[in-house]
Structure formats: structure tokens, C-alpha cells
């Protein structure tokens, strides 16, 4: 066998290995979603979405958990989006070559790998106890913001890095200041990438359970939060709670709630993909 044949053979082997892995992943995912759908789809109706939780499975709904998740999502966006994007811009455009930035960079990459429960412990200590926010929506959102900040920062930096130097040069050469160049050239050109990163990070936040349990989110709340200082529950915790009940009715509820949670994440990821494609077309 000569070299070319050998390479071609390697190509083939690698190709089949790739297909095999993809198929395995897809099959498992399909089985999982199919199973959940069979268990839960019949349970989903308007009442299920608007009912408060109850001791009886057939009267229970996800209203408070859904509202809790929406509250958490909204507050986390408000906190993490500006802070993360600003930090990304600073690190990429202003602090590129100083030592502090190097140190920060390593730390941020490491933070992205820290288990989420550790963030929960940090949130419990800092937000719930020291800042005395209690087990509130605000404390939960701050904790989740910390959790997703590294992702937002890293994806902002990646998006900014993709803007060609020639565009920045042209802007500076016309007399634009650094800030004007960031505002008029860099941000519009990297907006799609930044938004995609932020939405993907948020869709991770909406599925997080552990850190919120540590912070003190409730498993059973008979009311919807009215302000950032109220106690709350979220979808994953509600699901967790139902799954640990012995009655078959609650298992069905859990499956139905999982379908809705999956739906929310799919929609968010869909929006992210939409933004990415739209921006790519515009800026090509």
C-alpha cells in the first residue's frame, strides 16, 4: 500500500468513526426525547401551565416555577449581559498586553470550568448571608450571573477578535477614537457573535439546579414572585421535586415539565442560531 492509499484508507476510517459517533448521539437523544414525550405530552394543557403546585398530582401546575424561571432569566440577563460584554471589550481592546489582563484571562478560563455547585456556595455566603439578600430571586440571579459571566466574557472576546484589523486601522486612520471605533465598527461587526454567546449562556442558566438549591430556592412555592426580593422556585427544581415523589401522577407531571423546559432551551438556541445567521449574511 503506498502513502496515498494509506491516507485515503485513514480518511475512510475516520469518516465512518465520525458518522458512527454522530448516529449514537442522535439515537440516544431521540430515545430520550421520545420517552419523555410519551410520558408527558398528554399532561400538557393550558391548566398545567397556569395552575399552582398542589398536593394532588392532577391539580398541580408549573405556573410558579415557570414564572420563577422567567424572573431569574430576566434578572440574570440584566446583570450578566452588560457586565460580561463590558469586561470582554475591556480585556480584548484595552488591556490586551498588560500582566493583569494575562492573569485575569487564565482565571476566567478556569472559572468557566468550576462546578456550578461551588458558585452556589459562593452565592449563599456572599449574596444570601453577607449582603443579606435572603433566598431571593435577586440572590439567585446574581449567583447565576457569576456562573455564566465567564462564558459571556469569553464569547464576547472571540466575537471581537474575529473583526479584521484592517477595519480598525481604517477607522483610526479617519480620525476615530478608540471608543468610536469600538462603538461604530467593532460592536456592529461582532454583535451577532456576542448575542449568540449571551443567549447560549442564558440557556445554560435556565437549566441550572444545584446552585439555586444551595442558595435556597424553594421546592414548593404557592405564589409567584412579585419583586426581586421574593422567594422563588424554578423549573428544574420543580421537576426534581416531582420526580422524587412515588406517585405515578407526579412522574407524569415531571415529564411534562421537562418537555416545556426543553422547549424553552430549544427556542433560545434557535434564536441564537437565527442571530448568528442573520449577522453573518449582513457582514459578509
Amino acid at each position, binding site marked *: 500500500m503506498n502513502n496515498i492509499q494509506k491516507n485515503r484508507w485513514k480518511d475512510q476510517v475516520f469518516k465512518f468513526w465520525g458518522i458512527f459517533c454522530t448516529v449514537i448521539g442522535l439515537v440516544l437523544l431521540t430515545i430520550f426525547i421520545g420517552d419523555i414525550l410519551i410520558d408527558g405530552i398528554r399532561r400538557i394543557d393550558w391548566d398545567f401551565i397556569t395552575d399552582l403546585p398542589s398536593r394532588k398530582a392532577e391539580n398541580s401546575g408549573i405556573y410558579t416555577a415557570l414564572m420563577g424561571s422567567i424572573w431569574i432569566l430576566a434578572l440574570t440577563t440584566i446583570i450578566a449581559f452588560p457586565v460580561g460584554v463590558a469586561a470582554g471589550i475591556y480585556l480584548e481592546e484595552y488591556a490586551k*498586553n498588560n500582566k493583569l489582563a494575562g492573569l485575569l484571562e487564565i482565571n476566567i478560563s478556569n472559572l468557566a470550568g468550576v462546578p456550578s455547585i461551588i458558585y452556589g456556595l459562593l452565592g449563599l455566603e456572599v449574596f444570601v448571608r453577607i449582603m443579606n439578600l435572603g433566598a431571593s430571586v435577586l440572590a439567585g440571579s446574581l449567583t447565576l450571573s457569576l456562573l455564566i459571566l465567564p462564558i459571556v466574557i469569553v464569547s464576547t472576546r472571540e466575537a471581537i477578535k474575529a473583526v*479584521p484589523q*484592517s*477595519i480598525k*486601522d*481604517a*477607522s*483610526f*486612520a*479617519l*480620525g*476615530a*477614537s478608540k471608543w*468610536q471605533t469600538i462603538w*461604530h*465598527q467593532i460592536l*456592529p*461587526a461582532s454583535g451577532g457573535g456576542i448575542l449568540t454567546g449571551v443567549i447560549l449562556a442564558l440557556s445554560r442558566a435556565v437549566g441550572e439546579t444545584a446552585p439555586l438549591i444551595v442558595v435556597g430556592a424553594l421546592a414548593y412555592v404557592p405564589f409567584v414572585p412579585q419583586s426581586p426580593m421574593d422567594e422563588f422556585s424554578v423549573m428544574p427544581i420543580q421537576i426534581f421535586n416531582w420526580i422524587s415523589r412515588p406517585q405515578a401522577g407526579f412522574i407524569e407531571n415531571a415529564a411534562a415539565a421537562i418537555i416545556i423546559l426543553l422547549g424553552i432551551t430549544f427556542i433560545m438556541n434557535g434564536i441564537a442560531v437565527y442571530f448568528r445567521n442573520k449577522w453573518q449574511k*449582513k*457582514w*459578509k
Partner: protein
Amino acid sequence: MEITMENPKKKGVVLDSIVDTSLKKTPKIETKNIKVWYEEFNAIKGISMSIKPNTVTAFIGPSGCGKSTFLRLFNRMNDYVDGFSLEGKIKINGQNIYKKNVNVEELRKEVGMVFQKPNPFPKSIFDNVAYGLKIQGIKDKQLINDRVISSLKQVGLWEEVKDDLKKSGLALSGGQQQRLCIARTLAVEPSIILMDEPTSALDPISTAKIEELIFQLKQKYTIVIVTHNMQQASRISDYTAFFYLGELIEFNKTKNIFTNPEKKQTENYITGRFG
């Protein structure tokens, strides 16, 4: 059409004489014993030269001899380069442009630059040309409109694009893009235009158009152009500077450089014996 362009937001000290319109007609560049380092590497080794107003000066020399480095000193584009350091004086209109309190943004409105690869913004043709005015805080729609049209006319692009000013600048051909970039530079009304190999990425017809344009622009602007094309240098420039290994070997009227060079190295280079 004479429009004053006072930027209401400008900060720091402006190069007074640059804004002064009486001196605007006689800008010139003067360098004294310029040395440049990139970290430890000595890229420019002590160059003094003076460039006359309303002339085209060509920088020639083999790759890596420091032409771009030297050119980019005039609008301070090397400022962001890591490890860059400078010794010596550069005066534009008699003002030292590397003095501490010089406003670099103001300087760059006076000293425009066109790059090797056409680099239009990913914006419409109109917005590309209007960009320099908008960042100065100019809001007057009529003024912006007029300036965009006159700039596009100056570079001979108006007839080609007047019906689709909303089209992306990136949708133009390479040669059109480069003329758009020149129009963008003209719109802020500089008095000096720096060009770093502006035609090296273009076909012969586009190149000819840009050479013709440079010839016309000389009436109003002082132009410094880096080129690897000897015919181009001899066609369009009044003065030619030959650089070699960070030094200015010879600087004279283009006619003299090409017909009767004083230095052997210059002669060898322009006749293609090395470089």
C-alpha cells in the same frame, strides 16, 4: 466649496497651524534624524527628509527596508504596535506631531491614509464615505450629502454607484473598493494622503485609474506613496526616495533618480539587479 470643519467635541491641544486654513495650503513633512525600534530591532536608522507641498513622493526599496514603518509615522499609526519606540522629530506644518499634547485624532483628519488591501467598512457605500464626518459629530445632512457626492465624484466612482449608494461597499469590485477607500479619505478633507502600495492588489485597468486619480489629487493634496512598481513610481511621482535596510540611500527628483542616480545601490535596485 470651503467648509470649515471645527469638531465641537475635540479635546486636548490641536495642531493649530493644521486647522489654520492659510497654512493648510502649504503643508509639508519634515523629519529629523528619525530612528525607530521594534523591541530591540532597529527598523529605521536615522532618516532626515523633507517633503514639499502639492507633490507626489514615492517611497521605493526592497521588502522589509522600512518604507511602511516610515510612512506610518506621519499619521502615528505605529502607536499601537507592541514594542514600538521612536527617536527624532517629525514636523507637519512645522508642528512636532509626537509632542505630548498632540491630539492624534485631529492629526489623522489632516493626514489621511489608504491601505494596501482595499478595506471598506461592512456598511453601505454612502456610510463608508460619510463615516469620517459622522465621527466628528457633524449632523448636517446636507453637508454630509454634498461631501459624499463630491468625494465620490473626485475618485470617479459617482457615475458607477450613484444609483445604489445603499449597497454594501463590500459588493464592489476590488478596484472600485480601493477608489471608495480613497473617497472616504478625501471626505474628511485632509491635506496629506499616505498610500501604502495602494494598487498592489489591483488589476492593470484599476491601477491606471488610480494613478490618474493620484495625478489629479496632487493639485490639492500632498501625497506620499509606497510602491514596488518602478514604472508606477516614475510615472506618477515628482520625488522618489530609495530606502535600504532602514536607511534613506537617495532622495531626489524622480527624473534624476531614474535617469541619473547618484548611488550605485539605487541604480542596481531600479534596474532590477537586486531587491
